[in-house]
């Protein structure tokens, strides 16, 4: 298979940017550290205080953010390729709202701990994904029906979430709103381990399916003629993508729009058609880390959850995407 040099270069450049963003993110906070100090501490030659702040507080948070971004970026790329639609991403089809319903049920009704909340989110997200897919099914789910059904389902689930928030006492309500927004605050090694395990299995699996996925984008018939087992490929890829997005959501809440925008931005940078899986994954990580940095340092003493920043920026990005897609006559 021909290796696209531009794609490789872009991915490498993004990777460098991710590492730089990670160092800056780790260095910022109530106890600011220069990039040099951060690197020194990471390589084991910092003061004990620096070691504690970096290794116990900020590094796990940054790594969770990184993996969440990777999972959302690559998961979104698969969604968009399989639906052959720039907007067929988990954000638009109600996945986040479904995960929120699951998590909120645990928070508000069962007062469960973080692990139970994560479990609730995964169940809610998976059920929503399956439900939207079934509702949109009519001899295939291509085209915009999936998107519109997703918008409808999302509206219903949002109502359920709002009901749960009004039902809660103020403490649970605050926790619920914070969770629904998507936050990396207080994430530690306990979240990192499971997320890493999921990513370690599924990301290589999806990358290995890169070629069949690219053929699948040309249409089922063409892919079949070229020897792709269409249905099984699609099921494996979608299941992996759904699980990745669910795992990311369980770890950090529904961080909006990373899954939508990362693959699109990656495609624009690499200028190659088709699913730029690797570039999308790294772009997702970059977006998440930069958004987290903005959320924690741009508002003075006040810190916002990262999902607020991605929500606002992502909403604006989606509007821009609509404008350009219309100019290009694609929508």
């Amino acid at each position, binding site marked *: 298979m021909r290796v696209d040099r531009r794609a490789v270069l872009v991915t490498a450049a993004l990777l460098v940017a991710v590492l730089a963003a990670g160092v800056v993110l780790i260095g910022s906070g109530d106890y600011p550290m220069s990039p040099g100090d951060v690197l020194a501490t990471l390589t084991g030659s910092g003061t004990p205080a620096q070691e504690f702040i970096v290794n116990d507080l900020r590094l796990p948070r940054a790594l969770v953010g990184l993996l969440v971004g990777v999972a959302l970026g690559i998961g979104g790329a698969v969604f968009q390729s399989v639906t052959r639609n720039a907007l067929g991403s988990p954000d638009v089809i109600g996945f986040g709202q479904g995960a929120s319903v699951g998590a909120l049920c645990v928070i508000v009704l069962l007062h469960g701990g973080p692990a139970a909340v994560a479990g609730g989110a995964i169940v809610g997200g998976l059920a929503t994904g399956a439900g939207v897919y079934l509702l949109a099914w*009519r001899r295939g789910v291509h085209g915009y029906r999936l998107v519109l059904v997703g918008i409808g389902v999302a509206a219903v689930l949002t109502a359920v979430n709002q009901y749960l928030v009004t039902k809660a006492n103020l403490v649970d309500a605050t926790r619920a709103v914070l969770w629904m927004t998507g936050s990396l605050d207080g994430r530690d090694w306990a979240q990192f381990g499971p997320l890493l395990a999921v990513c370690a299995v599924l990301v290589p699996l999806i990358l290995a399916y890169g070629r069949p996925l690219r053929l699948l984008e040309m249409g089922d018939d063409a892919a079949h003629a070229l020897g792709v087992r269409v249905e099984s490929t699609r099921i494996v890829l979608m299941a992996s993508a759904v699980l990745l997005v669910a795992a990311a959501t369980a770890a950090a809440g529904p961080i909006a729009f990373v899954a939508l925008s990362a693959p699109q931005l990656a495609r624009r940078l690499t200028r190659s058609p088709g699913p730029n899986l690797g570039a999308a994954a790294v772009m997702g990580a970059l977006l998440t880390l930069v958004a987290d940095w903005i959320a924690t340092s741009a508002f003075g003493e006040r810190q916002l959850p990262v999902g607020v920043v991605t929500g*606002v920026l992502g909403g604006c990005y989606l509007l821009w995407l609509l404008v350009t897609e219309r100019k290009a006559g694609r929508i």
Partner: protein
Amino acid sequence: MPAEPPPARRAAARAAGLLLAVAVLLLVCVASIAIGAKSIPLDGVWHGLFHSAGTGDDVIVADVRLPRTVLGLLVGCALGLAGAVMQALTRNPLAEPGLLGVNAGAAAAVVSAISFLGVTSLTGYVWFAFLGAAVVSVLVYALGGSRGATPVRLALAGTAMTAALFGYVNAVQLLDSAALDRLRFWTVGSLASADMATVGKVWPFIAAGVLLTLVIARPLNALEMGDETARALGASPARTRVLAMVAITLLCGAATAACGPIVFIGLMVPHLVRSLTGPDMRWVLPYAAVLSPVLLLGSDVVGRIVARPSELQVGIVTALIGGPVFIQLVRRKRMAQL
């Protein structure tokens, strides 16, 4: 195509239908006054409305249920008309103030007013809600509504707008937990805190919006046939669009300021109405004005019944009913070919 009855008989049938709809609306209003955490028998309702002597039931009727019902009437009417006008203006079956982010715009402006400017009065909310509703209507219309837009574009423009604006609303709530406590009820959409003062403040705006929509009914019909034909028929497309936007802003801004963002009323009712009356806006608008409050008040009553002794906010009930209707619309064959 089925044989059309002669115009005079058709008009008579439509007028009779409208009367029937008014009768249904009256029934729903009575139900809205009678049914609740404490149900009140019909003679009690009558007593409380017309011969109030200050008994417990009389107070509930006069101070709680009546304002709530009147506000539901006003807000339902406003949202239904706004939806009908939007669908005509954009020639788009999925247009709806809630879906298109107009309510979110009003919500974002109100939240800013509460948190940053310390606005606490409803009078203050209303003006900010207008501002937000106006800005977002113009933006969404420019992005997705004007010539040649598909329903998907419009729905997505609204979704994007809603996402960005509610992201902002969330941010404000998180930075200001006192605001969260006030806003978490307001952002759901509820009639529960209605009182006559609220009604007194919003009715002039809604009345103005209603009058405006009735004035532009005929030009909107002309606009359906394209700008050229509309001009030939003596309707100015540009003026009609501006007036329609003003009407939408007045209606959505006032409704949202009074009881928070309520979705799907403006989507469902005009669809139902068009299947009854056909596309003529001179009939669609009055029908929508009468049947939308039926749906809103009906949802409010249902919300009070199913969650007794507490209640389900009406915005939640309308979303739970409206979401499936929306999905059904989308699954229709015509829409499937988008």
